[in-house]
């Protein structure tokens, strides 16, 4: 997983924006999504802290990794969308 794919997707989005096929994304839109993602990540962190079984901890940690990846992507998008 990485930011390279996201950069390519943003380029495609900009092309579609120029053609008038999509709505303009404003920083506020990204911030709203980022807020939800941060909340989910915190929720997963507390679930991991209270999980007793190792298998469950592994499962939840994998989910947290994805959630953090989303947060990183959203922060990158926020910096690059304006």
């Amino acid at each position, binding site marked *: 997983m990485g930011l390279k794919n996201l950069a390519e997707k943003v380029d495609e989005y900009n092309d579609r924006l120029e053609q008038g096929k999509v709505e303009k994304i404003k920083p506020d839109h990204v911030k709203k999504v980022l807020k939800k993602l941060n909340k989910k990540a915190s929720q997963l962190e507390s679930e991991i802290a209270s999980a007793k079984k190792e298998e469950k901890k592994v499962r939840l940690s*994998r989910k947290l*990794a994805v959630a953090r*990846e989303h947060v990183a992507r959203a922060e990158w998008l926020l910096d690059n969308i304006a």
Partner: protein
Amino acid sequence: MTRYYLPVAISALLLAFWISPNAQEIAAGVAIFLFGMLMLEDGFKLLGGGMLERLLERATRSVSRSILFGIVSTTVLQSSSLVSVITISFLSAGLISLMGGVGIIFGANIGTTTGAWLIAGLGLKVNIAAYAMPMIALSIVFVFQKSRVLRGVGYALAGLGFLFLGIHHMKEGFDAYKDQIDLLRFALPGLIGLVVYTLLGTVSTVVMQSSHATMVLILTALSAGQITYENALALAIGGNVGTTITAIIGSLSANFQGKRLALAHLVFNLTTAAVALIFIAQLRDAVDWVSATVGIDADDYALKLAVFHTIFNVLGVALMLPLMRRLVAFLERRIVEPVPDVSRPRFLNAAVDAFPETLESALRKEVLHLYENATELILHGLNLHRHEIFESANIAETVRKSRTASDLDIEERYERRVKTLYSAIVEFTTRAGDKRLPPEIAQRVYDLRDVASDIVQAVKSVKHLRKNVLRYTVRPEGAVTELYDGLRTEIARILLEIQKLEQTDPEDRSSLSLDQEHAQIEEDARSTTRHIDRLIRAGKLKPDAATSFLNDSAYAYGAMRQLIEAARRFYIERDSSMAEVERLLALEDEDFDTEPSG
């Protein structure tokens, strides 16, 4: 009844034309007026583009707001029938409450009185035909434009022009009668006159399906001196009762909620009419007092009729308002919510077809209905039960304990509870595609059809698993049972996660969280393949069982991916910019090929 309606109506008209040529002008005036109303409705539908629907949704948060919305919308649209039909449509789609709907109907009854004021105050005193002609001529230029808004303006302008023209012809017709026939000879005094003319007013509105048209007829006949003021009052009361017919016709294709609202309309108008008839003398005095206070001439019966129309409708609302909760309770008792038949579409009906917002909302609910049926079938197909899974603190343990075969004909259940709904959804979306929906709504409608398709594909995948689930999971058979339990557990986990997403507050919900499940599926799929290799090498799994399992695991992981994709499309942000952000941030298939970082 309907079989005889057409020949009787045509015969009556032809007979009237034969008896009096002036009847032609009055009848043509009525026809032009009704035609104008139809055009006005079409115009507002084109102009609406979801605006009216969005307003309606917001306006029903309290009873007072509902009533105010009913007044304002009916005043602007000049059609209580249109407002009733839209309200029934929204109620059927579950977008507003019955209480909110009843409030709008109350308000619409007050709003409709503005029509009487317009006709009495303007229509009969100004030569409105002079305005009608340029309006109609200009409208046609707009109607032939490509822009939806301009076409809407064109239809609305033409509608208004035809309304004016209709009033003009009715006025001309009655003026001509003035010199030939004296309708006053048919005037009936006393109670009998009240009853007969109330019935006449009701029949007139039922036939023309417009209380406005009846009001125009009454006012023009009254101003031409063809009927007495007393008879005109009774006709106006009857016209109000007759107006409920449009709501009743509109509710025929609606669900039980729409029928409740139509009954509320009937109860309200009948009660108001009864009260008005009983207290007719007092109401007449009140009209005289109000008219004198606001400076209306004592012999200006047209304006006095408008005052009467307003007073008795406002009085009706004032009387019924304290009884509103009782009325709603009565409606709920009288028209009982039918026990839902899960195998039939619950939300897709003709009443929700007319407006983009109700159409999308009803479709969304029906897709959720399909998903509920699919969830039940998938879990039963895996010998699991929804309540046990959704309440379980340890899914793997619950699955291990589920060793009883479900009594299920999966093929028959699929045909009855999944395929029928899916067919209805496809038919509905195809029909919706023929309408000129705003592009944003059209896209969401097609996305919902794709959600339904993914759900159905997931069920089909699970159907393939059924044979070996029955073979290997009803009693412990070592490694192969553990493998199938693993698949059952993973599918159950996905369904549970989707259930949690449904229950999450939309303010906190993000379809991106499904990527976490997707990443887990891909990791499980990879580790399962490695595990099979180890089991075969260790001689714990026979090659034929391994082959069956590999085939089945492909179906199972396919079902999981389809369920996640369906949920992703279903729960994606409704705001198009926010949805675009989620699409940009979502992980792609290649992102799942490697272990996540972090």
